[in-house]
């Protein structure tokens, strides 16, 4: 919790800045609609966190979100009765893609950067082939409710957030971080490194499925719906102070990072900054966040034990 403080402070400042320009933001409806808009990215960040903290990457989540939305539209095709079976299928699809990412990375020992980059291209190509560039079909009303109705979106987000926090406190979470910090020491302590990583990738896939479900309702069906989301999620996680390479940072901070990023976009929007600058801003934020992490202020976590100072080096 202590380590989440800097990002929570930044978030508070940004939210205050938004509220000054747009007082509606202070009303429950205004604030919750912001949370609804941020929900998919926060959920993706939680999934991405699990992978990053174990020392890996998942670049495939953006394409996976697109696939989820396109598949949902095609299979439901406006049929209300198909909603729930398709929702279940989407979760299974996310799970499966994550599992493949995890299996290729851990069992075939392909670096996850390459595995998930490959998966991103495979999924993008598959969507293009399948839709010919223009997705067909339509989502049902019940499906769209998740992304559109603030209550449902916020509820989904809260469930995911609570689950993520509990997961990180459980044996799974603690061993996951230990793997990211020192894989060899973890293995020699009896941690099932392959299995734990596999689960992390799978959960990242599931988080992309859930984010896709929300985004489908919120943003509608298109072949671009998930574009760039993988980088937004990574930016959000890094912004939360989670170190690339693993072993450090909390899931709360990662999710706060996603809210912060979304708040920043909202603020730029309010000030009339062109939407085209979104990527530029994101790039600057990403680099700045890593730089800030690299020059971590030593007094924040300096040892207070006398005479143990030399052990740092």
């Amino acid at each position, binding site marked *: 919790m202590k380590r989440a403080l800097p990002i929570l402070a930044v978030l508070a400042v940004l939210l205050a800045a938004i509220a000054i320009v747009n007082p509606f933001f202070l009303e429950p409806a205004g604030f919750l609609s912001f949370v609804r808009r941020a929900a998919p990215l926060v959920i993706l960040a939680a999934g991405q966190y699990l992978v990053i903290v174990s020392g890996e990457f998942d670049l495939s989540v953006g394409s996976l979100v697109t696939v989820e939305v396109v598949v949902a539209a095609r299979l439901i095709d406006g049929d209300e009765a198909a909603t729930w079976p398709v929702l279940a299928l989407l979760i299974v699809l996310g799970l499966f893609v994550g599992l493949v990412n995890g299996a290729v990375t851990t069992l075939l020992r392909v670096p996850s950067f390459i595995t998930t980059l490959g998966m991103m291209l495979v999924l993008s190509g598959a969507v293009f082939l399948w839709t010919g560039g223009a997705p067909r079909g339509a989502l049902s009303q019940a499906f769209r409710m998740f992304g559109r109705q603030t209550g449902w979106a916020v509820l989904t987000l809260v469930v995911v957030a609570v689950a993520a926090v509990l997961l990180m406190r459980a*044996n799974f979470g*603690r*061993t996951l*971080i*230990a793997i990211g*910090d*020192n894989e*060899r*020491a*973890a*293995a*020699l*302590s*009896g*941690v*099932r490194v392959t299995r734990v990583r596999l689960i992390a990738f799978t959960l990242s896939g599931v988080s992309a499925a859930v984010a896709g479900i929300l985004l489908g309702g919120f943003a509608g069906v298109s072949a671009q719906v998930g574009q760039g989301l993988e980088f937004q999620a990574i930016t959000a996680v890094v912004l939360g102070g989670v170190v690339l390479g693993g*072993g*450090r940072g909390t899931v709360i901070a990662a999710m706060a990072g996603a809210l912060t990023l979304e708040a920043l976009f909202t603020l730029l929007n309010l000030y009339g900054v062109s939407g085209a600058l979104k990527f530029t801003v994101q790039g600057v934020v990403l680099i700045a966040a890593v730089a800030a992490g690299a020059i971590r202020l*030593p*007094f924040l*976590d*300096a*040892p*207070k*034990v*006398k*005479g*143990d*100072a*030399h*052990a*740092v*080096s």
Partner: protein
Amino acid sequence: MLTMTGIGKSFFGVRVLSGVDLAVVPGEVHAIVGENGAGKSTLMKILAGVHAHDEGTIEIDGRRVSFGHPLEAQRAGVAIIYQEFNLLPERTVSENVFLGREPIRRGLVDRTAMDTATARLLAELGEDSFGPRQLVKRLSVAQQQVVEIVKALSLDARIVVMDEPTAALAEHEVELLYRLVRRLQERGIAVLYISHRLREVFDLSDHVTVIKDGRLVTTVATEDVTSEDLVRLMVGRDLNGYFPPRSTSVGETRLQVTGGGNDRLHDIDLKLNAGEIVGIAGLQGSGRSELAKALFGAEPFTRGEMTPVRPRSVREGIRAGVGLVTEDRKSEGLALRQSVRDNALLVTRAMGRGARRSGVRELLERVRLTPPREEQEVRYLSGGNQQKVVLAKWMTVAPKVLLFDEPTRGVDVGAKAAIHDLMRELAEDGVAIMMISSELPELIGMSDRIVVLREGRIAGTLPAGSSEEAVMSLAAGEVSS
């Protein structure tokens, strides 16, 4: 030639050094001893320009100097050789020696000049086991140390600081290091020698400076003191006889191997009994660590019988009640950026057993971690305290057999005694203990029985209290025995 007077330094308001004086003359070997955290490393880093000092003066050849950067210290003739070397493994010896100041001829790096100069220095040091064109990654730790020394010489260093130079060396390599130090001495170079091993201090040094809690205790001529004197000065108390008393009763067999083997080990017959500490001796490469890893299941035996089970994986080993305190705490023992508590609970969590956070405090007190701060990241702990955390990690699963691989390497005298006491305590509680150590006095002082390995086989077993000579001759395979 070097005089440091009244050196003081604080980090973040915590005083780590105050009023330390040090004077060194050319051709002298000056040992610096003190417990971990006493401030030895900080003092040396000030000399090497890594840290700036807050108080005091440094004079070299009567001229007052102040180093803001390691390069300035280097130019003034100070070279420091750290425990972990700063060599590029994929480059050759001479490329490493001349890194960043390669001789240039017609706009290109003059390799011939580099190789010639390096070869000359190697010859001067009497090193003929490798040449200037050898890739550093193919060299042993001892040879890499030679490269560091050659680098220092090529920089015309007149003061060479060696920080725990024998920590990573095997017993027979230490002799080579001694020879190197003496060669440096002959060239009129002053050597500042930091070590935990008192034997080296007595073998090599002319003077000893003792530092405790950041303060100078004394500087004495080595010949005027005994090792008991030094220990007393370092810890401020007597460590009576160094080692806890041996076991009186040996219990049932906890683990037994017959004819165990894999690609590194052959025909291993070994029995570990409750209440007993079995020492494992052998030269580097004799298969000591491999034996521990095989018994534990990390690099399993592929042949032979083993009771209660022959583990095929770490988890099987742990389930059978075996724990391994690895040789290298930092790379194999701990998740350094996690808290003391998370590290202590790692094994129970990994094994899916209920991890009781409430029990951690009690456990840390049991392993005598001071202060027992559960939230502290382990990388901020001293070597001794880190090792205690590793021990705590295994005690959570109540092991029947504990294998220690170099349990006190890089650990200060006080913590060392605490770890020895703990090992004995565990043995008395019925744990079967195996201990690998390169430090013969420790091995002989602790073990109830010493098993000597040579080239992956058991060369022989010696009783408690055998002489160092007996162990070494078995380990080295001298014909006389």
